Each structure stands twice: as C-alpha cells, then as structure tokens.
C-alpha cells in the first residue's frame, strides 16, 4: 500500500520528524515500510500491510500508529460537511440482507456542475498510483485512501428509481461490472440493486450500467459496512480483488461509515459544487460491539519475560485508542471500533503492548530445559545413513518436485498400491500428478546432465511417493530411496571401475548388508524397465532393480535404476554379530567351469551348496571370461574355494580329495 507523507502529516501537524525516521519507526512497530521514495517534493511510503490490519489501510490509519509512536495527543481529522438540511428519506435504501449489510449511509447530491475539477485530488491520487478518472470517481477514491472507508457513487439518471436495495443475488443473475466483464452471481453474493437490476456487487465493484461519467450531475453516495466474510467469499469466487474488497474483507471501521460520506459531500461541494437533496442512515443487524478484555500485569510480565510497568501499559494502550480501566494489577481494556476485528483477547493486547515496548528492547534468554523431548523418529537415522552411504559410493543427491507429468506415472512401475493423486489446480499439466516413483525424475536429471556434456550420471533421491485408495478414501505416502547410474565416470588415468550393472547391484546390496539384511532378486517384467528384478527381503517385495527404458536418445549408454522402501530397513534390520575368523590356515583352490551363457550363477551356486563338504568355509565368483579362447555362446566362470576349519589345521591331501569330489559333481552337472 502506498501512502503520501504530506497527507499523513495533515493528520499530525505537530509531528516534526523526517520521513525516513518515521518509516523506520513504523517498520519497527509492524507496519513494514519496504520503500521510501521521493516524488516531486513529497515522499511515498510503500507499506506492507499484514492481513490482520485493515485499520491501517488509509492515511488516517498510518497517522494513528504514528500518533502512538510519538505519544501525540490528538489527530487533526479532515473537515466534513457539518449541517445537512436535506430531508431524511427512509425510502432511499432498503436492506434486505441485514446480516450482510449492517450499516448504510446514503446521500443524494444533485446539480453538480460538470465543468469543474479538483487538481489537488487528482495529483495526490496519481502519486499513489491511481489514475485520475473523473472528479467524482477521484473523490470517492480519495476518501477511501484518506480514512479507509470505500465509497460508491451511482449516477442517479441510470437507476430505474431512486431507491436501492441491498440483497443477495438470485442464482444465475448477471451483471456487467465496471471492468466490462460479465459476471454471474448466486445467492451467496451480496449485491446492491435498483428495482430492476444489479447496480453493484456489494463491496467489490460497481456495474457499468450505473457508472458515474463525465456528464453525471446527480449522484447517489453509498457508504456502508459489509460483512467481511461475505465480501471475501465473493471476491475469491470471482477472482476479483479491488481496493474496496481488500478493505471490506478485513473489516472496516463501522464508526466511520457516516463520516466518510459526509467527507465526500464536503469535497464535492468544495471543489465541484452541488446540492444535497436527500439522505438516510439505515442499520441492519448490530456490528458486534468491541469486547472487554481483562489483563493481569503479572501474567503479562510472565508472558513477556520481563517486568513492564502498569503505567507504561496504560500509556501504550491509551495512545492506540484503547479504553483502559485499572484496578490493582487488573486492567479492563476496550478496543477502539477500528480494532475490534483483530484485537479479541489477551494475547492480542500483549502483542500491542510488546510491539510498542519494542521487541528489540526485550532481553535474550535461552530457556533451560531439563532432559530431552521424545526423540527423533527412527527413520531419521536410516535416511541419514542412506545419504551418507550413497554419497560415499559416488552418488549425488537430487531433489525433484513431488508433482510430475502424467506420463511419468503411466510409464513406470510403482511400488505402492492405489490410484495416482491428481492436483485440482496444478501450475501446468506436466506438474499435475503426485509421483508414484522417484525413477522417472532421476532419469530426467540424468538426461539433463548428459545434455550438458556429462558422460555419466550417478544420482539418488530420498522422498515420498503418493497414492489414493478410492474404497477407503485413504491417502498414502511412502518414503522411497532411489538411484540411477550409467555412463563412464573418470578417465583411464583415474582407473575407476566401469559403471556396469554388477557394480550397481553391488552398491545396492552393500547398503542392505550393512543393516544385516540379505536380498533376493527375482527376475520379472517391470513397467519402465528393459530388464528388471524385484528385490525381496524374507520373501517380501521391497524394491526393484534393473536396466531402465530411456526415451532420451542423447543418453547413449544403458542406465541402471533401483528403488526401494526405506521403511523396510527398519523392519528387517538385524543387529550384526561378529563372526570370528578361524585361527588356522586356509587352503584355496580356483576352478574354472565352462558353460553356456544362459546358465545362471545361482544354478552353479546351488550345485556347490548341495555337494560341498563341511570344510568348505566359503566360495565365491572369482572371475568370468568370455571371448578369445572360449567358444561363442559359452562363458568361463572361475570360482574360488576356501577350505578352512575352526578346529585345526587341514591337511592339504584330505582337502584335495574332498575338493576333487566336489569338482566332479560340478563337471557332471555341467554335462547334463
């Protein structure tokens, strides 16, 4: 909101401070002055008004705060028309919705010459960013900016009769507003109407049909108090925010309704001329009167953390227009009419007191708490370990938006059941669904990096996926950890191992074995993967791993991907107990089996498991080789066997015999 320094000063003729100082002081009581700029020989303040302070949305409001800041005695209020000898005409206004409209002041002014103007008003408006329309419209804006009461002027010629009705719109009733947009209304909307038509959407915008123009000579002045929620609801629905609605929706001062209308008449008569013909002041239901609030100085001091003297409290509240009565330590406080919407209870008064004591004048005190709170949820630790682990093996953490393109959920697997969650009001269609997998996002990150010249990608993410179960109307969020990798990392000089699938599998496996968890891999057809396996723990599917389908042709290498549920680690993690190694020497043999490529390692493993002797401590894949010297379609698998006993040294001869038996089994199995 823009405010003109010279205008504020009219309310406070005795105030002798620089605009910069005043701006600073205003900021420190909560009227954040974002900018002070010099315009001609004046200063414009740009003030950020918080949603609770409708009362400062005028020069009067800002002046009131300054009055309290500088401890001034009174405000110089603008001159209004004092005597109005025109007759009161009760027929002028009929309030049908007495809840929506609680006060309505109407004054009819006739014979306004159309050849006059008021440059002072137009100049001020323009400095504040309002373009001057015509002298009458300018005056209505001027009064709003001056005292915070939005006014509306109707051109009497354009009304079907000289009586306005404040009522709810009929369902489907239409009106073309001043901005030339046709708007459809319903019974939730409050309107001003004549006998035939809507002439204004109450508190928001007038209708074009009753607009004041250059030829207008007789006007109907409306100054009213409308229910804030009603105004806001319609303004939100129509997606139409005006200077008027911004004020009404925060609650205007019911005590200024009549004053503002009389101020407008004063300005019209002074600058343009004209005669008051009729007037009326109608009330609907009561605007709830300000409440009495009780505060105890001891409680206030405990809340503030310091002693604040009773006299100081009285002075602050008094200077802000609150009525204060004291009895001992107890204060009875009544807010002024313009503060009844945001000051309702003790805490609201504490705020008023503390912001004028000055937050910065209160000391710092670190509270001493005994012990700890309940403790972090266990998943926090797992998450941190996952991040540290993936970082340590060369992965970069990504954070992607939780909302994704609809194709993401269509094309990729989801580890969670249920339908996708759709946004009602997405920023765009490609951000309209809540993700069901982290993999498409990571793949997109990989493409992004490849497009920028990276020859590899190793990226991981930890975050939620979302689903909805229609039958139970249940929304589910499951935390996943996902990783993608591919390409060539480093240079030959760096001697970094290839990012091949078995490396990738090793990365995933090691993360789990660190928690004492063994994984099973079950080959399956999985959406979004060229080849994939489900990752199981003790039979339960907890994740998926494999080679991803990649649409982006610029990604010229295979991309490995894995995704798993973080929570499952909590469920299956085992305490690791150390297995002490044997003190006796080990005897190792290597043996190479040549077999068709289609034979899986697990088959070889199971043969060894079946026929191994009790002295075989361990065996593992030593190497695989295919190519020169190996017939095509075949592969040489070298296995290392480690014989070792915990009871004593093994004789090489005994072991050789046992080992030969095992090798025979392996050879005969191979021939089958």
């Amino acid at each position, binding site marked *: 909101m823009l405010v003109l320094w010279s205008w504020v000063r009219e309310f406070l003729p005795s105030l002798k401070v620089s605009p910069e100082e005043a701006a600073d002081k205003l*900021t420190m*009581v*909560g009227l954040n002055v974002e900018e002070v700029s010099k315009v001609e020989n004046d200063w414009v303040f740009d003030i950020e008004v918080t*949603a*609770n302070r409708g009362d400062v949305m005028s020069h009067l409001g800002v002046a009131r705060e300054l009055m309290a800041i500088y401890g001034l005695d009174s405000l110089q209020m603008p001159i209004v028309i004092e005597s109005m000898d025109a007759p009161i005409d009760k027929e002028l206004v009929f309030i049908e919705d007495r809840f929506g409209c609680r006060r309505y002041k109407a004054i009819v002014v006739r014979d306004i010459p159309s050849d006059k103007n008021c440059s002072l008003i137009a100049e001020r408006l323009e400095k504040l960013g309002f373009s001057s329309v015509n002298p009458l419209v300018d005056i209505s804006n001027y009064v709003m900016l001056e005292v915070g009461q939005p006014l509306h002027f109707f051109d009497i010629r354009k009304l079907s009769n000289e009586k306005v009705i404040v009522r709810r719109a009929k369902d489907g009733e239409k009106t073309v507003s001043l901005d030339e947009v046709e708007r459809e209304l319903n019974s939730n909307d409050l309107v001003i109407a004549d006998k035939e038509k809507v002439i204004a959407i109450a508190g928001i915008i007038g209708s074009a049909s009753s607009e004041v123009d250059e030829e207008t000579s007789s006007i109907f002045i409306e100054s009213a108090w409308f229910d804030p929620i009603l105004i806001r609801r319609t303004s939100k629905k129509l997606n139409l925010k005006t200077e008027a609605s911004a004020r009404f*929706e925060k609650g205007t001062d019911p005590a200024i309704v009549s004053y503002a209308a009389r101020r407008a008449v004063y300005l019209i008569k002074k600058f343009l001329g004209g005669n008051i013909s009729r007037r009326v002041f109608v009330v609907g239901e009561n605007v709830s009167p300000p409440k009495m609030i009780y505060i105890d100085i001891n409680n206030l001091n*405990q*809340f*503030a*953390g310091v002693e604040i003297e009773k006299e100081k409290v009285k002075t602050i509240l008094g200077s802000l227009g609150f009525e204060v009565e004291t009895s001992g330590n107890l204060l009875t406080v009544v807010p002024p009419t313009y503060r009844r919407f945001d000051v309702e*209870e*003790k*805490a609201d008064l*504490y*705020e008023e007191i*503390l912001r004028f004591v000055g*937050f*910065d004048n*209160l*000391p*710092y*005190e670190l509270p001493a708490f005994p*012990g700890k*709170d309940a*403790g*972090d*949820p266990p998943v*926090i630790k797992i998450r941190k370990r996952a*991040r540290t682990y993936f970082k340590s*093996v060369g992965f*970069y*953490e*990504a*954070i*992607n*938006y*939780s*909302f994704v393109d609809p194709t993401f959920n269509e094309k990729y697997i989801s580890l969670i059941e249920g339908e996708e*969650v*759709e*946004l*009602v*009001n*997405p*920023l765009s269609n490609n951000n309209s669904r809540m993700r069901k997998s982290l993999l498409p996002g990571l793949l997109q990150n990989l493409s*992004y*990096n490849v497009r920028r010249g990276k020859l590899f990608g190793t*990226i*991981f993410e930890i*975050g*939620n996926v979302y689903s*909805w179960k229609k039958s139970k*109307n249940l*929304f589910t*969020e499951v935390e996943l950890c996902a990783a993608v990798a591919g390409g060539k*990392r*480093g*240079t030959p000089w*760096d*001697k970094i191992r290839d990012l091949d699938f078995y490396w990738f599998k090793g990365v995933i496996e090691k993360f789990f074995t660190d928690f004492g968890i063994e994984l099973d891999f079950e080959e399956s057809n999985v959406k979004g993967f060229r080849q994939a396996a489900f990752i199981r723990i003790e039979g339960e599917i907890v994740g998926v791993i494999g080679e991803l389908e990649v649409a982006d042709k610029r990604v010229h290498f295979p991309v490995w991907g894995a995704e798993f549920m973080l929570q499952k680690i909590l469920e299956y993690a085992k305490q690791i107990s150390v297995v002490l190694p044997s003190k006796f020497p080990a005897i190792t043999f290597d043996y190479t089996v040549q077999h068709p490529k289609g034979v899986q390692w697990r088959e070889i493993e199971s043969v060894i498991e079946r026929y191994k002797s009790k002295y075989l401590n361990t065996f593992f894949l030593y190497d695989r080789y295919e190519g020169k010297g190996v017939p095509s379609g075949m592969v040489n698998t070298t296995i290392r066997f480690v014989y070792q006993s915990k009871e004593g040294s093994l004789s090489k001869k005994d072991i050789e015999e046992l080992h030969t038996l095992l090798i025979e089994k392996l050879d005969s199995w191979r021939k089958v």
Partner: protein
Amino acid sequence: MIDIAELKEEFKRDIGLVDSIKRLNEVKHKWTSKTGILKNLSKKITSIPLEKRAEFGKLLNSLRDFVRGEIQEKEKVLKETQEREKIDFSLPGRKIVQGAIHPVTVVIYEIIEIFNSLGYSVAEGPEIEDDFHNFEALNIPPYHPARDAQDTFFVKGDRLLRTHTSPVQIRTMLARKPPIRIICPGKVYRRDNDLRHSPMFHQVEGLVVDKGIAFTHLKGTLLYFLRELFGKGINLRFRPSYFPFTEPSAEVDISCPFCEGSNVCKVCGGANWIEILGAGMVDPRVLRNCAINPDNYSGFAFGLGVDRIAMIKYSIPNIRILFDNDIDVLSQIN
C-alpha cells in the same frame, strides 16, 4: 694358498643379493676399496712363490675384471630401475569417487543438529494434509485473508498439499501433552513460480510448549540457533508482523554476515539486514484447538525456508538451480 675360484663364488653371492645402490656400495667397499679384498690380494702377491706369481697375477686380473664388470652392470640396472620407479609428484592424483548431499539437505541436517543439542526432537507428518490441520486449527478459518499468502494446491475433497509444516505442530499437540520441544523439517507447496519462489520448497518449523514460556525465551532460542548457523558475529532484529497462529508475531532479520567493506553486498543489497524467519508466541486459539489450556501453558514457534538459507549460504542466485540437480553444481557441496 689363496683360492681365487672360491673368492669369485663369494663375490657372485654378494652381488646376487644386491637390490639397492646402498647394498651395492657395501659390496663395492668390500671388494674394490683401498682396504677391499682385491687390494689386499694385490698386496699379497709378494708372498707368493716366484714361479706361481705370473699365474696368480693372471687369475687375480681376471677376478678383478669380473668384479668390476659385474658391479658396473649392476649399477646400470639399479639406476634404470630407480629411474623407472621415480614418483612424479606433480602428476594429478587419481579421482576419488565421492558424491554429494543436496545443499537443502545439508542445511536441514545442520538445523536438526543444532536443535537436537538443545534437546528438541524431529517430528514429521504427511504432505497431503486436510484443511483442518493446515488451516483451521492454525486459526485460519475459511475465507480468512491470510489464506491469500499461502496459495494452495488442492487435491481431492478437502485434501491439499500442505503450505507449511505447521500441521505437524498441530498433530503433535493433539497427540501428546506438553512439554513439547520439536522441529518439523519437510517439503511444503505453494502455487508460486518465479525466480524467488518454487512451487515446492522446504521448511523447518520449531515449536515449544511448556509452562512459563516467555517471549524472551523465543528471542534467546533464535539468537542461539542463528548464531550457530551463521556465525557468532551476527545480531538479530525482531520486527512485529502477523501470522494467524502466533500472537505476537515477528519477522526476524539477521545482520548480514556477508557485507564486506564499501562494496554493495550481493546478499543483502546494502540493507545490512537479511529477513530470515518468522516467529512468535503460539496463539492461544491454536492451543485451545489442540486441547491445551492457554492459562496453564504458553509456547513459541518459528519457521524458516531452508531453500533460501541454502541459497544464501552457497551463493546460489536462483531457486530453480536447487531443483535442476546439476552434478556440476551438486559436486561442489561437501
């Protein structure tokens, strides 16, 4: 009689064991120095009977030639090896494979650590929230103007993407009794998208509810926290503000830790203050909504945008960069 052949064998053994220049020098000393075996042998020639001198001389010469030849040969080989194994300390070390944690996460962990040290626990809640937890319980009834500041993504029915992590505070207060000391990190969503706003960003909020919690405690806690995060030298400024769920409410600025000399600072734009978080005393209406009696308990709450802090800390000019996940950017975070 001196057995030259045996000496030759001894030398062969000696030279065979040589694997360094140092050892070679030892062998040289033993055989070819002024006090070495060969010299001694020449001296002994006078004690040899005349008739055998010529033959002895021949044998000695051949041994001498052999020894010198072998030593020379060995020296050459050793020098070559040394040359070959010489380290070039200027060659780059091979790349160590290590990734990075996202800057936003790094900041979240820093904050968690600071508050853990003060005895706070982390609390978490769903990102898909309902109107009650995200707004109403926080004293933001329907059609409250404060809803404008938090333009909301809606899901189905009354579900929405939480606009702040405050609903976690509500859930915690509904689930257990004070004393409560929690921080709530997490993703939040608002329908904003420009250079400074991302439709998804991260918040950490804190909440303390206990008997006798005062405004000065809020100030003390934030001073401790922000000095841990930005350095001991910073000062705070509390500007009164408005949030529906705190009363009084404040915007908290830190004195700019980046201002240097007379240049206009890129971070604060020369204002010397950086707006860093919002805070306040928990509004009694919020306590009542959570069945906590504000006559017995009071509390404070604060909230800050992590992404902005990460941007300030790592001089990242545009919030989008945080979500591009560019490896060349991420790899600089440690």
